[in-house]
């Protein structure tokens, strides 16, 4: 019996924090690729500490819904899941390349495949592009457009910037958008000065965050100048200093994220049948009207 456990941060304060986790779990569930799909949280229930005891299967894949390798994926989650013998060297990662480690979870005395975070998977690049398609309503968006991928800087986590750059570089290589830049919230180049970094009249701004919350709904819109105060809201697009900014909100809310979750599990050996194709198809941006 094959089980998927999606682990995410969750929130004590924001009721919407868990919504993307539940949505993607539902998408994966609908593919029928797993006999069960469970969700676990750091700030909600079931907690990381107790989620595995709710799992029935003996072939367990744990996928962290986090944007980069770091404190949560390397320390908190393995510790709270009680992965016996965990050491970050199990992933043998350069900060981007964690795939999976098979370890026994003491809580249930069963082996689990502990996967790398969704945010550093190569398939995440496609989700960022898909997000740009969603927010512009144009499945062919690219020509005449710039794309800004935004995250925390290295101040909080050195791998955070690596993930941003990785995806920005990969999108740039595709020559789809006129310009692609990696911007940061707490280091240069800063998202506050977005229009200075682009020549394009239209720029899609995609924050590499899992859920909408304080950073994506308050911090970034105000810093970029989409609004004076987040409570006023903002239009998409909004013109700032001559640049039309298409603000996408957290990339993690994009339905195609379910694909990255499946890719992580597949890389760790899960048998998914046609689920990957199914999810790519069902989460597409509708063309035309």
């Amino acid at each position: 019996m094959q089980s998927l456990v999606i682990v995410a941060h969750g929130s004590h304060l924001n009721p919407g924090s868990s919504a993307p986790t539940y949505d993607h779990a539902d998408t994966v569930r609908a593919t029928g690729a797993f006999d069960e799909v469970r969700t676990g949280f750091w700030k909600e229930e079931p907690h990381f500490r107790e989620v595995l005891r709710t799992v029935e299967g003996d072939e367990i894949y744990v996928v962290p819904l986090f944007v980069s390798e770091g404190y949560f994926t390397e320390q908190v989650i393995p510790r709270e899941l009680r992965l016996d013998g965990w050491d970050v060297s199990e992933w043998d990662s350069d900060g981007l390349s964690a795939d999976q480690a098979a370890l026994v979870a003491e809580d249930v005395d069963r082996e689990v495949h502990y996967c790398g975070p969704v945010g550093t998977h190569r398939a995440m690049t496609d989700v960022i592009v898909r997000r740009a398609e969603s927010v512009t309503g144009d499945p062919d968006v690219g020509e005449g457009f710039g794309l800004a991928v935004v995250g925390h800087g290295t101040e909080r986590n050195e791998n955070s910037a690596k993930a941003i750059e990785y995806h920005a570089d990969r999108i740039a290589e595709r020559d789809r958008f006129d310009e692609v830049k990696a911007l940061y919230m707490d280091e240069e180049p800063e998202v506050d000065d977005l229009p200075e970094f682009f020549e394009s009249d239209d720029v899609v701004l995609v924050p590499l965050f899992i859920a909408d919350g304080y950073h994506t709904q308050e911090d970034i819109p105000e810093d970029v100048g989409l609004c004076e105060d987040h409570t006023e809201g903002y239009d998409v697009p909004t013109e700032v200093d001559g640049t039309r900014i298409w603000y996408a909100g957290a990339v993690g809310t994009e339905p195609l994220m379910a694909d990255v979750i499946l890719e992580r599990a597949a890389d760790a050996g899960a048998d998914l049948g046609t689920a990957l194709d199914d999810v790519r198809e069902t989460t597409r941006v509708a063309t035309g009207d």
Partner: protein
Amino acid sequence: MAEPASDPADAARDGAPEVPEIDLPSDTFDAVLDALAERDPGDPLRFEGFSVARADEGDGESAPDEYVLADGDRPSRLSERELHEALDERAPAVTDWYAFERVVGEFGPRRAFLRWLEDADGATVATRYAALAEGVERAWGELRITATVTDRGERRYDVRHADDAGVSVDELDSYDDPLDARELVTFDEKGRYRPLKTAPTLAGGWVFPDLGPRDAYETVETIYPATVANWHREREGELDVTHWRETMERQSGIYGVIKTWDRGEGHEHVNWVAEACCDDSQCLKRREWQYDDETDLDVDGGDGVFPCREPCSVVVSAARKWTRLESEQPRTYEFELTPSEKEQVEEIIDAVADGRIDEIREADTKEGANRYRTRFLRAKLFDDEGNLGGVPTDPDEEDGDDADEDDADEDDEE
């Protein structure tokens, strides 16, 4: 339909409810045949009160479509048709086997929970079916779960808020997908976010009126995550309790500071935490964790049916705040209050702590925590900076603002 319903009064006079008529469904009979096919001839499949095996010809070969039913001390040899008749006569026991072996399955927490719903004391099939025919009710947190049995021996479950017990299904919002419960548990009756699923603030007005066994379990699991698994471990004598000290020693990052709150000067601070957060008025889990494995807390752990095995994330987050606040040294402030004002301050604290603010009527000025009374107190006693009695919080500063600390707290939630 043609048969008149049995008079409940008859059952009441007998002192025991009647066992309902059960028709053996064909899929249940087929499941029995499948189970027998997987067994060697002579290896019996056991039901309550009898067993069935494939007939053994003596040479290890089975006789096709011949079965042996052992009921008491005289085994009888039956054709498949006769077996069907025999099992139909014993339909309660056969459908009971089917319900647990083929529908509920082996998974420990689910099986134990569904069994417990209808059978806390190891009752016989007849007793259970008679009770199920009338509906067996169980409480789980704020839930009321009613188990029944159909005339095909299938279990059905009605799951709703205990406050809605007895309300017609038509008057409630009806659901059939257990995952829909995620929406029902997110906000309380006043629309406020519920960060703790086991807080006694579950809103009512909804019902899952007709769930099968697995969906009943999933619904309860969605409303009160992991409570069944922990309850099951406790029943098996395997609940892994992690006490306060061990939990806080494990914390890292912004929570690493909490362990410094334990200064080897007793555990009174943890009593206060448990009284604040873990009382039955705040959380329905029964607190089993203590200060450490040698030192029990002095406050009540509650009466909940499911246990709490370690301080939860809400307690850990609050403890981080208290660790910082409790590192401050007390100072002596001097205020002048009338006796009634002192009592009013106490009433305001009580009203907030007990969540009674919304119950205090707007014009009820007898209540100390009444809004007009409280606004009057503020108008009289606060200076322009919001200092009680005009006394600055810090004698060296005009303003004791701690906005910077609040900013740091955002690390906690992103």
